[in-house]
Structure formats: structure tokens, C-alpha cells
């Protein structure tokens, strides 16, 4: 695998994860429990879609086949997506959406922190922009997880159920493979496995404040980063890609 082939895959992992999560979060638009939360979710989705544009635009440039960010977002099928399985999980209730957001934000803030020092300036520049936004996201999602976890008996029970349900999907964030090996060697990206200790510490602190128990079972679902997805991704793409498939090249 060449450096650019590895970088292309890595950029798809970043860009597809922010794209699919932004789509999931945007499903809440007009449905959140209170208007402030509705606005906050929409703003978070907007930041994520903006970051997606940067990552996928660079992916297209690195690939060198003339594909734009839109081509990559709208004209690939499920098996070409490289997002984490975690972000394609259905929203569930508001608490579960925010639990998923926090588990992802905690990872993303650490990953972007390392990418600030990437040997590839294009990657470092995007990380610099995105990390400012993600610092905000993690502050909010952590605060909401604590508020609901350490809240009423009902909110506590729901947040514990959300954590139990989503936890088998967090391990995939830290899986390293041949793509990572190439990029670690040239200093473009960190070893995802090296982020685990800091993630465990951050998530441990927040779950303690939230009075939630982290599941002991270490079983991990994986495959998203190499294109093996759950049944949910196809439905997301059917919704997201419909317009460009039915009306190719449509603009507004």
C-alpha cells in the first residue's frame, strides 16, 4: 500500500464518520425535547458536515481521480464507506444520541489533538480548525451525559442502557491496521491504539460523575473502517443520496 492509498483510506475514515454522524444528529432537527437542544444538535450536525467537506475534499485530492467531496458523499455505496459502526447506530432516545455523541467526541478530540502535529500540513490544518469545534462538542456532550446519568431514576436507567448498548462499538475506534501502519511510519497520523488510555481516563471520569457503570465485557464489533457495515447504513444512504441519485448533478 502506498502512502497516498493509505492516506485516502484514513481520510475516508475521518470524513465518513463525521458525515454519517452529522446525518444521524440532523435527524433530530425539529424533534428535540426543548428548542435549545434542537438548536444545539443542529449546530453540532452543521460543524460535522463542514468538517466532512474538508476531509472528503482532501480525500478526493489525494486519490487523484478527480472526485469531489460531493461525489464521495453521494455516489458511493455502503461497502465503500469507512465510517465507524458506532456513528451509524440508530439515534434511540435523546439520551442515547448524546451518549453516542460523547463516546465519539471523546475519541475525536484526542485524535484531532494528535493530528495537529501531522507531518502532512493539509491534515494538520483541518485538524486545527476542527479541534476548536470538537472542544465545544465534547464539553456539551459530557455535560449532558452527567446531567442525565446523575439525574432522575428514569434518566439514569436510560443512560445506563444507552452506555450498555453502545459500548460494544467503542473498541473499533482503537483498532490499528495496515492503513495506520503506513501513516504512523511517515508521521501523518497516530496509532489509534495509543489513544485508548487517555480515552479510558476521560470517559471514566465522566461516567463516574454521571454515576454510570462502564460495562466490563470487552467484546468489540468491528468492520466499519474496512467497509463491512451494519444493516443501518444502507437506509441512511438511501435517505441521504436519494436526490443526487434521482437527479444527478442537481444543485441549489
Amino acid at each position, binding site marked *: 500500500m502506498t502512502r497516498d492509498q493509505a492516506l485516502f483510506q484514513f481520510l475516508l475514515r475521518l470524513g465518513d464518520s463525521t458525515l454519517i454522524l452529522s446525518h444521524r444528529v440532523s435527524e433530530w432537527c425539529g424533534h428535540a425535547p426543548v428548542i*435549545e437542544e434542537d*438548536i444545539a444538535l*443542529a*449546530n453540532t450536525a*452543521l460543524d460535522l458536515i463542514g468538517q466532512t467537506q474538508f476531509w472528503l475534499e482532501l480525500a478526493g485530492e489525494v486519490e487523484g481521480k478527480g472526485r469531489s467531496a460531493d461525489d464521495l458523499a453521494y455516489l458511493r455505496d455502503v461497502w465503500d464507506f469507512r465510517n465507524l459502526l458506532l456513528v451509524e447506530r440508530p439515534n434511540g432516545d435523546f439520551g442515547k444520541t448524546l451518549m453516542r455523541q460523547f463516546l465519539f467526541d471523546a475519541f475525536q478530540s484526542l485524535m484531532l489533538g494528535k493530528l495537529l502535529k501531522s507531518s502532512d500540513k493539509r491534515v494538520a*490544518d483541518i485538524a*486545527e*480548525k476542527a479541534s476548536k*469545534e470538537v472542544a465545544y462538542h465534547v464539553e456539551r456532550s459530557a455535560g449532558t451525559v452527567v446531567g442525565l446519568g446523575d439525574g432522575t431514576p428514569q434518566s439514569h436507567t436510560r443512560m445506563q442502557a444507552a452506555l450498555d448498548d453502545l459500548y460494544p462499538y467503542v473498541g473499533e475506534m482503537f483498532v490499528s491496521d495496515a492503513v495506520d501502519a503506513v501513516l504512523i511510519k511517515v508521521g501523518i497520523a497516530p496509532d489509534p491504539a495509543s489513544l485508548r488510555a487517555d480515552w479510558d481516563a476521560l470517559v471514566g471520569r465522566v461516567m463516574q460523575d454521571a454515576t454510570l457503570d462502564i460495562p466490563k465485557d470487552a467484546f468489540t464489533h468491528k468492520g466499519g473502517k474496512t467497509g463491512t457495515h451494519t444493516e443501518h447504513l444502507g437506509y441512511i444512504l438511501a435517505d441521504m443520496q436519494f436526490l443526487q441519485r434521482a437527479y444527478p448533478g442537481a444543485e441549489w
Partner: protein
Amino acid sequence: MVIASLPSVAQVWDCLDTIADPEIPVITLVDLGIIRDVKWQQDQLVITITPTYSGCPATRVINEDIVSALNHKGVKNLRLERRLSPAWTTDWMSEKGRIALEDYGIAPPEAKGTPARCPQCGGDDLERTSQFGSTPCKALWRCKSCLEPFDYFKCI
């Protein structure tokens, strides 16, 4: 044959300082601090712009407004460049912009991360109602003296 003279770099800055932010029309693009460089490369004008937030929908409108304003000044050969690093910070907002924001009812960004006072009554007994507001750059706050809600321009 009459050849219209092209504007100087200083005149281009003046022109950009008349273009209002599409979502907060009381401040200009120059006030916002997103114009990072203006230069002529031979007969092409190059304007370097940095986005406020990655997904801010105003970015596209801002680019269109710049092109249209400069076309009006006779500049046809124009290139807009995006610069991500250094990332935009509210430290780049002009003093004129900060004053205009507060007059408009939006508390300007503060280094400590919270508004200095209520833009309506000047009270300092404030609480945050949401980390996010009606645009990516704002948060929602409320004044406990006059009981009015207000926008705070987030400090990043």
C-alpha cells in the same frame, strides 16, 4: 479607449469593509476578521478568506457577496483562496465590530468565555441557557436582572 483603473489593495480593503456579514448585518467581513490577505498577482486579485466555523452556511453567501462587490468595482479577474491555518479566532474581530455587536444586542466575545454584561440593560447577573444559538458563532444567555434572553458571540 478608456481603461478603467483597477482598485488598489487599500481600496479593496475599504470595499470589503462595506460588505455586511449575511447573518449579523451590523458588522462587516473585515470587522469579523475573516479576510486574511488581499494582494494583486499581476492582473489577478487574490483574496484570502478563513471560515468562521467549518459548516457555517454563510461562507458561500460571503464568497458570492465579495465577488459581486468587486465585479461592481471593475475587478473581473478575482480568485478567492481558503486558508484554514491559523484557524479563525474571535481575537481578530475589530473594536468597531465589537461595539456594533453590542449596540445590536449581541454580547461581544470575551477572553474569559462568558459575556461581560447584558447588552440590553448592562446587568452582570447572567446565566447560560444553551452553548449553541441561532448561528454557529453564538450561544444563548439570559440576564437575571432584566429577564431578557440575549445572544453571546462565542469566544473561540
